[in-house]
């Protein structure tokens, strides 16, 4: 359902991303791997409409959305769990979730809240407390829950397990898998490669702003490209 081809993104004169391609399918999980600074976040943000790509195409359901601004992209059914959580600190937990439901039908808000609270009971306990007071992991859960609220057809996740305890990693990744099984498309950046590979269908490896490897999760296991990408360039030099 999402098709990204040969994406180039600049920060001023810096070509942070030059030649990234990947795809996401309904019901499937695409895992994006790469070292720090490889350009994963930049690519995801460009897809979500936060940066205008210099070139390349982003196609959603056969419709080109390259450079469409973020608020419109969301209306097309795409939700992003941003890097670094980006919680609305002064708003309460519940209000944060409601902002997440901004584009969802009004009637579904209560049901959405119930789903999130069931997944993360901590959030239910703290629903009236300012979100900025939550612990790091709790905020990560909130960011994830907030993205669920819009009832997306396609989810972009930028390191959803960051700061989560192992039980929670399982729970979050588990529910990502469950969502995929319900037919939602998932595009996920995850540094916890082991956990990520366990649930992923496809893998894309990004290095130095370029896609260097694409394949199925099963193939990914022993791939050299992955090792390079994860170890960074030192490993390449040795190779």
């Amino acid at each position, binding site marked *: 359902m999402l098709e990204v081809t040969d994406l180039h993104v600049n920060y001023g004169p810096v070509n942070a991303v030059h030649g990234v391609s990947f795809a996401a399918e309904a019901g499937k999980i695409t895992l994006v791997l790469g070292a720090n*600074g490889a350009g994963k976040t930049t690519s995801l943000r460009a897809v979500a409409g936060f940066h205008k790509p210099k070139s390349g195409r982003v196609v959603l359901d056969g419709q080109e959305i390259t450079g469409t601004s973020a608020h419109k992209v969301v209306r097309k059914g795409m939700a992003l769990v941003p890097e*670094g959580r980006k919680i609305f600190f002064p708003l309460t937990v519940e209000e944060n979730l409601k902002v997440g439901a901004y584009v969802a039908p009004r009637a579904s808000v209560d049901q959405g809240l119930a789903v999130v609270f069931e997944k993360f009971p901590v959030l239910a306990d703290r629903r009236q407390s300012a979100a900025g007071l939550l612990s790091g*992991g709790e905020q990560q859960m909130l960011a994830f829950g907030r993205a669920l609220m819009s009832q997306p057809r396609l989810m972009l996740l930028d390191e959803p397990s960051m700061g989560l305890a192992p039980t929670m990693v399982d729970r979050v990744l588990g529910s990502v898998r469950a969502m995929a099984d319900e037919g939602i498309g998932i595009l996920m950046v995850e540094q916890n490669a*082991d956990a990520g590979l366990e649930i992923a269908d496809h893998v894309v490896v990004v290095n130095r702003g370029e896609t260097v490897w694409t394949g199925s999760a099963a193939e990914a296991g022993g791939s050299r490209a992955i090792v390079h990408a*994860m170890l960074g360039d030192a490993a390449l030099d040795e190779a």
Partner: protein
Amino acid sequence: MAENTVEETRRGRPLLEVDDVAVHFGGVKAVDGITLELRAGHIYGVLGPNGSGKSTLLGAMTRLTPMTRGSFVFEGNDYTRRPARTVHHMGIARTFQTVRLLDDRSVRDNILLGQDTLAKAGRKDADARVDEVMERVGVTAVARMRPDELSYGMQRRVEFARAIIGRPRLLLLDEPTAGMNSSEREEIGALMKQLLDEGITQFIVEHDVQMMVDTCDYLFAMNFGKLIAEGTPAAVVKHPAVQEAYLGKGAGTHA
């Protein structure tokens, strides 16, 4: 991970004594009576579910978060009532769970900040030191860039560098490797061990159990603001309460 690690831990001189510390926010008992002892020359780790009070404990230890009760003694000095800024002067440095860098200062300047309140040495020495530290955490190539131009992982490295440049005697780290992949984590783990050899005792909050087991001499596990287990990494990871509250079914994957 042999039993004698614990023995060794006991033999060192007490560096920090934490006695019955509690931090309550209205009804939320984030930290609820923690007593522990850190001895010089070890790497300690803290595990615990989200919201169990780990970061809050670090906050209290550095006096940034006002506490409800309890006391801290560092190298024999009770600093429970001293203002936060004196903690750094005593030789305790920390990182934060979220990146906190000055966006309009260069990476180099951000790292030097950690040195500023300690440095009695000359400028030349500071320069050499910052170069060394940048090399060790791997940010030399971006020394003059501004943090907001860096990727998240790189920003975390800068944070780390800032905390160690002043050669603290106790280093408190809050999820230092969040946002890094496993090989990058190994690098950081190796760095921690080097730092230990240089005499920096460390107290680390992390969710990466594998790394904690590999790196730490001694682990604490928290839940609901209380200690639920402590001991050698192997023992703590096997502790049923920890298995139950923390590791879940993923225990196999992560430890």
